[in-house]
């Protein structure tokens, strides 16, 4: 049954790839995959990318634009009728005029960008850039594709009883022991279990814990599926070996889990992730560092399990037709403007350590890999503070309202200089199991943490030497050059 559905799935992907290969010969297209958990900055990245390309921002490292070979960039009509359009205009207005960050994404959306450029030897061409935005929570579902209900239940329960999560999972676990999985199915029990389980997942996302590995994603961001049976299930403590009787609670839960995978997860994966040319993985390392070592390890676990699902590697002719793969993958530690630039190398080292397995695998498959510290929109300036212990390299900006640092709460109107703490030189020490390399918010020590990355308000537009004012950024041009600069040769 699963084998057949897998084969059908592969055949579908191959057929689509074949159709697109034919189209791509005449009209080159880059499908840019923007991968990132929730709050990693996907929407801001896309908005800044489109804004910068369309208005010709300040991108010295992005060669086609810097050397003037890009004639125009325009938005094309949405290619797929069933998918909403990425609301670029609204997001740009929120970011630029209101100086607020966009709301978290609740729905999938798409945008198609046409880049008219002149190639190095003078030919006029057009490159189509397809970009997809989606709630980052949904990404957590991808690892479920390879897990049975029993495996998933056991993992969830083990996680809930361990480390920082055990304090949050109390009421769910208490309810769990009262359920008999072999009893006849009861909708009330199922709803209550799903509600408590969802509440536990929501609690894990609090800034103080900043946990990442929280599948199923639709429990956190249901989209248009709220309340449907496919979302009304929860892990159960299943007895070993015994086959549950027909009509029991565990059979019902398993059926719902399977239909969740088939109805919700698989189409999402098929539509948006199985066929990517280029990929950027946005990771909000700083939020995890804010919270503590448990959050860092949890983020690593989530990234590893997600990246396992992707097809990365340089395809030959045959594989380009039947098994398209992302040939370039960029890992970006976002919100790099929350740190002074002298600390960017350490931030990159931490991210590289976190995704070391995926980097090695991508290199083995022949994909090009790079790791950068990125700020798609740079909200701060730099400076330094002369203190007792020497000079502190700091960043200066307007903190968002209600942010706190050093026992002080900001109102969003005053500019402050923040020194966020020194990142460790040895990135490996952060990931040693059971280590408590630093204290974060999870440890409950109030303001006495080792790092404090404050969220800042978006910046004002910056006047560039020629043309319209543009959003400042850090290394967005390098990311663009890496991701599709070679397709604009």
């Amino acid at each position, binding site marked *: 049954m699963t084998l057949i559905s897998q084969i059908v799935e592969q055949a579908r992907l191959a057929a689509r790839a074949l159709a697109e290969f034919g189209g791509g010969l005449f009209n080159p297209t880059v499908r840019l995959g923007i991968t990132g958990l929730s709050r990693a900055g996907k929407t801001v990245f896309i908005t800044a990318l489109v804004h910068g390309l369309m208005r010709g921002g300040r991108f010295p490292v992005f060669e086609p634009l810097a050397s003037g070979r890009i004639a125009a960039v325009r938005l094309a009509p949405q290619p797929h009728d069933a998918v909403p359009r990425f609301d670029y205009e609204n997001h740009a207005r929120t970011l630029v005029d209101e100086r607020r960050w966009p709301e978290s994404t609740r729905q999938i959306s798409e945008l198609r960008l046409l880049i008219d450029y002149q190639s190095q030897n003078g030919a006029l061409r057009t490159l189509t850039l397809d970009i997809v935005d989606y709630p980052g929570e949904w990404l957590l579902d991808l690892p479920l594709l390879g897990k049975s209900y029993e495996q998933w239940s056991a993992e969830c329960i083990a996680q809930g009883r361990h480390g920082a999560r055990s304090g949050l999972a109390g009421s769910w676990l208490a309810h769990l022991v009262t359920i008999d999985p072999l009893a006849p199915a009861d909708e009330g029990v199922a709803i209550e279990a799903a509600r408590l389980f969802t509440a536990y997942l929501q609690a894990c996302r609090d800034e103080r814990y900043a946990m990442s590995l929280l599948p199923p994603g639709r429990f956190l961001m249901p989209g248009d599926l709220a309340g449907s049976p496919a979302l009304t299930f929860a892990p159960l403590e299943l007895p070993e070996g015994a086959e549950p009787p027909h009509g029991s609670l565990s059979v019902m839960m398993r059926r719902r889990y399977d239909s969740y995978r088939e109805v919700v997860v698989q189409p999402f994966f098929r539509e948006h992730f199985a066929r990517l040319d280029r990929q950027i993985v946005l990771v909000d390392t700083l939020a995890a560092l804010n919270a503590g070592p448990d959050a860092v390890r949890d983020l690593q676990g989530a990234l590893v399990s997600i990246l396992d699902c992707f097809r990365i590697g340089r395809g030959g002719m045959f594989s380009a037709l039947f098994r398209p793969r992302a040939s370039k993958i960029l890992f970006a530690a976002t919100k790099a403007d929350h740190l002074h630039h002298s600390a960017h190398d350490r931030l990159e080292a931490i991210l590289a350590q976190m995704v070391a397995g995926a980097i090695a695998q991508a290199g083995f498959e022949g994909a090009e890999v790079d790791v950068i510290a990125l700020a798609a929109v740079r909200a701060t300036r730099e400076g330094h503070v002369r203190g007792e212990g020497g000079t502190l390299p700091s960043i200066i900006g307007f903190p968002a309202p209600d942010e706190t640092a050093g026992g002080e709460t900001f109102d969003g109107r005053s500019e402050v200089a*923040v020194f966020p703490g020194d990142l460790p030189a040895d990135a490996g020490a952060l990931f040693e199991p059971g280590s408590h390399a630093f204290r974060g918010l999870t440890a409950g020590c109030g303001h006495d943490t080792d790092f404090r990355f404050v969220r800042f308000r978006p910046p004002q537009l910056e006047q560039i030497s020629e043309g319209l004012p543009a959003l400042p950024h850090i290394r967005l041009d390098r990311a663009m050059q890496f991701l599709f600069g070679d397709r604009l040769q």
Partner: protein
Amino acid sequence: MTESFRRPAAFQVDDPRVVVAEQQLVLSDSSEQALVATDSRIADAIANRSRHWRWGTLFWSACSGLVLLALGIAVTNFVEELFARTPALGVVGLGLAALAGLALLALIVREIFGLIRLGTIDSLRHRALTTIGNDDRDEGRAVVTDLLSLTRRMPQLARARHRLETHLTDIIDGRDRVQLAERELMEPLDTEARRLVLSAAKRVSLVTAVSPRAAIDMLFVLINALALIRKLSVLYGGRPGTIGVLRLFRQVISHLAMTGGVAVTDSLLQQIIGHGVAARLSARLGEGMLNGILTARLGILTIDVTRPLPFAALPRPALNDLVGILLRPEGREAGDLGRSEPGKPEK
């Protein structure tokens, strides 16, 4: 967490201790590089100048010292003789000798400065190559700053320099910054260099084809090559004197010896074909063609040696492009050169 780590802190921006960075901020923080990218396209083909002591250098230095001494004594004796004959003549002789000495001193100083400048360009290229390898941010900025001061006197780069200067305070990584500088500053110079090489090659092939004696074209080829080396070096910011040109010539020859074997394979075919057809028509024409091709190759190698940045973002001029233009009939190369260089970077 060890004690050496500093705690996070926040300050109001009007705090007197807060200094907003307007210009570049140089911090002594050593940068760790997690991923050292190795760009296989960029190979350091240029021979490292050996800095160690050599007997040959000693011999020639000692010899020149002796000659200078002998010359000094001869001049002194001569001036003394003049004084012995007529004091007035002696005064004139002394004045002339002093002028000659002064001019010699000026020449030597200029040579030394020229050599130092060539050394600067060499080390700049090595540093740029290292920066492209390890992506070091601070070093990248230092390289570009040095490059800007090296090209300060080039009027055709004024706008490019200004554009590059506006990016000096941006956060750009080492490799990107060096490549940005290459695209901005080297592109006009590369076009000009290509034109110089091509015109020298054409001149050589023409003179060889019409000259009556082999000795004359050998001499002409040599003089033309030295002039080309000098022009290219001046174009890329060097100011070589006579010794500087000779040193560059030696570098080019050793570079030729190192890379010759590699370069032969990719362009031998075309050389043989080009030479062969021309030689069928006339032996002298074929010889001229061959000398022209050799000059073009020499010119390309000279560009490698005199350019202050390695070829990373821009394509290296390929011999095939130049030879192709050389073999074509007159009057067509203007359009070919005007077009921005499409060529594949020569491996």
